[in-house]
């Protein structure tokens, strides 16, 4: 083997090993949380309220709270995100306005979540007097995931071949009719991946709900959208940093972390499956 090839081998193996280390890191995190978290999971853990200063009992109110937040943020972000994606891809021509809107959408995606929290508190909680509530939290989280939904909608519309549009126009269909009946149904599975990724994001988001909705401890379930709720990520934060008995609440913390990771894992896998299936189907 000459020197050139030897150097290449050494370097390539270095890269390979470093990449493997990243993979090992991910699995170490997953393993660590799964192995201890799975022990805490039981039917009671998932269906009971926290008891005895949150060292015993379950995380039911936090699960319900997170579900409310997922639903609330998506009710708001899904239509606006999809509409916005349609308008950007189907109606707006490449130009200053389009690049400005895309720039702003990407900027919004880069805003730190704690800034969303501040903004949500200033606008929804204080200015609009929603108080710390599901409504305020959902709107804040909705804005947070809006760029994800817009981007995936845009991408999936872009991947629909122009021949479909032209065929529809040739049949005398209007543009809107074409979008509704031809383009959207084709692109929809891919649009869904944006929703699924948003679910993962919303269920794990903490900083944005700290001051807009999250309750430290609230055993009863919410009655209206103006109530506070517990949420899984904030519950984990409370358990690890400011619980009454941090050591004793460790098992509950592991269990909560496990549920969170589980949600993210499942949403990611589903999103990938849909994407793969769609790509294959489309190519064929």
């Amino acid at each position, binding site marked *: 083997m000459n020197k*050139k090839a030897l*150097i*290449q081998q050494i370097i*390539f193996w270095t*890269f*390979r090993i*470093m*990449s493997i*280390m*990243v993979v090992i*890191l*991910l699995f170490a*995190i997953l393993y*660590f*949380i799964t192995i201890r978290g799975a022990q805490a999971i039981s039917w009671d853990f998932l269906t009971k309220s926290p008891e005895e200063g949150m060292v015993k009992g379950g995380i039911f109110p936090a699960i319900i709270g997170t579900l409310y937040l997922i639903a609330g943020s998506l009710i708001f972000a899904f239509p606006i*995100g999809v*509409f*916005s994606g*349609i*308008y*950007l891809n189907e*109606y*707006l021509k490449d130009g200053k306005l389009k690049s400005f*809107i895309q720039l*702003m959408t*990407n*900027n*919004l995606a*880069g*805003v*730190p*979540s*704690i*800034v969303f*929290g*501040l*903004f949500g*508190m*200033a*606008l929804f909680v204080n200015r609009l007097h929603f108080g710390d509530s599901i409504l305020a939290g959902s709107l804040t989280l909705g804005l947070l995931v*809006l760029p994800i939904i*817009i981007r995936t909608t845009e991408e999936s519309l872009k991947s629909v071949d122009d021949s479909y549009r032209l065929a529809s126009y040739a049949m005398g269909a*209007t543009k*809107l009719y074409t979008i509704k009946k031809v383009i959207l149904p084709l692109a929809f599975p891919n649009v869904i991946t944006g929703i699924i990724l948003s679910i993962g*994001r919303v269920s*794990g988001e*903490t*900083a944005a709900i700290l*001051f807009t909705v999250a309750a430290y401890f609230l055993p009863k379930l919410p009655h209206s959208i103006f109530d506070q709720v517990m949420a899984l*990520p904030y519950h*984990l*934060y409370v358990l*690890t*940093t400011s619980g009454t008995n941090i050591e004793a609440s460790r098992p509950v*913390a592991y269990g909560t*972390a496990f549920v*969170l990771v589980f949600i*993210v894992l499942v949403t*990611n896998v589903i999103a*990938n499956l849909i994407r793969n299936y769609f790509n294959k189907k489309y190519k064929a």
Partner: protein
Amino acid sequence: MKKIIEKIQVGILAGSSLVTSLTVLLIIVFLFKEGIGMFNKSQLEEGYVLTVNASNPVSEIDATSIKNVFDQNITNWKQLGGKDEEINLFSIDDLSNFYSDEQVGSDLEYLDTCMNDYVKNHENTLAYFPRKNLPKNFHGKEIQVGSISVYNFVKGKDWLPSARPVAQMGVLPLLLGTLWVSLGAILLALPFGLACAIYMAEIAHPRVRKILKPIIELLAGIPSVVYGFFGLIVIVPLIQKLFHLDVGETALAGSIVLGIMALPTIVSIAEDAIRNVPNTMREASLAMGASQWQTIHKVVLPYAKSGILAGIVLGIGRAVGETMAVLMVTGNAANIPHSYLQPVRTIPATIAAELGEASYGGLHFKALFALGCILFLFTMILNIYVQLVLKKKRVK
């Protein structure tokens, strides 16, 4: 009729597309309105007054000097531009040193009269007490405490937002804490991120890449509290043991956790940049007899340089704005950092930790919004830079 309905529907689509721009605008308005408000607010604790004898020539003292007076670092009026006399400090906190319970009454109902007498009879006093106890026909005069200047805000070395009688709002320790933790994170993430990106884009078999990509995405999807939890339970004790420290919650712990979190951003953008290098470039290089590594090193990487840089910058942006994980593992001491083995506190962590206890509309509250403004501006500038770079590349 049908046309009108269609027009309305298209109008709804167009309106939706403006929501993100509108949100960015609203964020700017609300953040800056509150944030800038802090520069018009007196640094003296709300609901309290500082008073002196009417004959005292001093009528305004800046916040730093007041802190020094109460810390006994300034003891003479001369240092504040007054007469050469010792400062006789009266603080409501030490009320029992001056008056008995009978004299002021059980609900402090006679404190007004006491204060009026005290300030009148003590020419060199500086008295600090609640505004509600300020006598109606007061014989002394009130000292004006200036609001904080932008300069002092940025350069101040102390972050003591609930200090009495004057709050100290120096961002420097928080700013440096944020930069230290983020730079450390990038330095740790960079070699791994680049190696991963190059491996996935140039070296790995497509099948391996297909496995690696979702794994990197998953790394990006794990919530930041979970990273914080992992850091707190695994990395923090490890650091404590490794370096024989009293506490493991350090800047280093923050950098490691943030490094892991910034990794996916760097990998995915750098990989895109490398894959966007036209194949003709590679083929030309290989045809000249260069090895694959030489091609990557001399042709592909230089071509993809700006895109890779964009990934790094965006990674820094992520790290700077990250809140929960950092809050959980860095120990949150608002000191100017001197070593990676000390606890530090970052800007986002400060907002998350303190906003709950800051009273609505007060100086502290507004100062936290001002921190939010700094954070927003910083990430916004990085974002716009990145997008311009990536766009230019695409046009090429």
